[in-house]
C-alpha cells in the first residue's frame, strides 16, 4: 500500500491557495462593495418596490371588484284601459262639424242689368 501525496509546486497555485486560506482574495471585493454600497442599497430598494408592485397587481387582478346592480323589477307592462265610448258620439261630431259661417254657400255676384246701352261694365 503506497501512500500517495501530491505536492503543489507551482508558485501561482501556491499563492492562490494561500490567498484563499488567508482571505486575501476577498479584499478587492470588499473594497468594491464599500465603494458602491449606496448604489447597491438603492438598487435593492428599487427591486423590492418593483417586486411589491408586481405582486400587488397580480393580487388586484385576481380579486374582481363586486358589481352593484339594482334589483330586477321585471319588464314594465303598459296599463291599457279600454275607454268606454258612447253610441251617440256621432251627434257630438255633427254639432262640431256644423259651420256657423254665413252666408254658406256664398252668394256670387250677378249682373242683373245686362244691356248694350249703359256703360256699366
Amino acid at each position, binding site marked *: 500500500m503506497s501512500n500517495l501525496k501530491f505536492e503543489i509546486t507551482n508558485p501561482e497555485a501556491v499563492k492562490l491557495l494561500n490567498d484563499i486560506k488567508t482571505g486575501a482574495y476577498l479584499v478587492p471585493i470588499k473594497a468594491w462593495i464599500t465603494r458602491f454600497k449606496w448604489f447597491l442599497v438603492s438598487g435593492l430598494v428599487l427591486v423590492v418596490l418593483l417586486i411589491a408592485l408586481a405582486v400587488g397587481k397580480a393580487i388586484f387582478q385576481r380579486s374582481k371588484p363586486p358589481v352593484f346592480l339594482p334589483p330586477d323589477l321585471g319588464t314594465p307592462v303598459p296599463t291599457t284601459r279600454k275607454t268606454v265610448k*258612447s*253610441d*251617440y258620439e256621432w*251627434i*257630438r261630431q255633427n254639432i262640431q262639424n256644423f259651420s*256657423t259661417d254665413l252666408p254658406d254657400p256664398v252668394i256670387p255676384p250677378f249682373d*242683373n242689368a*245686362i*244691356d248694350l246701352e249703359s256703360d256699366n261694365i
Partner: protein
Amino acid sequence: MKCHLFFPIAIILLVIASITSPFVLADAKSDYDYQYGQYRTGYSEFVILKRDYLNTSSLDNQQKAMLSAKQTILARDLAKASLNWYLMDRIASYNIDYNPIKPVITSLDTARQYFLAQAKKSQSIITQEDLNKFTQSNLATISENDSIVKFGIVANKVAALVRIQTDSSIALDAIILKLPTPIPSGLAARIQELKDSSKIIDGKIDLLANNLNLADAVAESVNEIFFTSRVEKLVEIRELQLDWIDRLIDIDINYVQPQI
C-alpha cells in the same frame, strides 16, 4: 240572329251606362257649379263684346254683343235657379218636418220657377230693344226673387240645427229606456235638466226661424246685419247643443254602456 246580337249590345249599353251615370245623375251642387261656371265664362266674353260695340257701333259688333248677352242672361238665370235648387236640396237632405221654414222653401221654389221662366223668356230676345225691355222688366221684379236666397241660406242652417235637435231627442229617449229602474233621484234630476235644456234650445231655434220675415224680404235682405246678427244666434245655439250632448253622453257612459 237577332237574339245573338241582343245580349252583347245589352252588355255594352250597361257598361256605358255604368260609366256615364255619375255624370248624367248630377247632384244639385255640381249642377250649380256648372251653371255658375257657364255664367262666369259667358259674362267675361259679354263684357269684351259690349266694350267693342260701344267703341265701334257696327252691325257685326252689335250682333255679336246681342248673342253674347242672350247667352249670359240664360246662364245667369239658370245659375240662380240652380242655387235655389241646391239650397232646397240641402234643406231636404236633413229630412225634417219643421213648419217655420216651410214658407222659405216654398219661396225658394217659386223664385226658382221665376228664374227658369226668365231664362226661357230671354231666348225670345232678338233686337236691342227687346234686350232693353227684358232687362228693365227683370230689374223691376228681380230684387224680391234675389232676396229669397239669403233666407234660404239661413233656413238651411236652421234645418241643420233642427236635425241635431231631433237626433238628440231620439238619443235621450233611447237612453231613458236603458236606464236601471227605479232611476236614482240624482240621475232623474239630470234627465229632467236635459229635457228642460232641450226645450230652451228648441225655443231659440224657433225664434231664429220665425224671424225670417218673408213679408218684407227685400228690405230685410239688404240690411247689413242680416247675416251677422244671425251668426251670433247660430253660435249660441251650437254651444248649447254641444253642452247638452256632452251631458247626455256622460249619462250614457256611466249608466248605460257596460263598464270594463
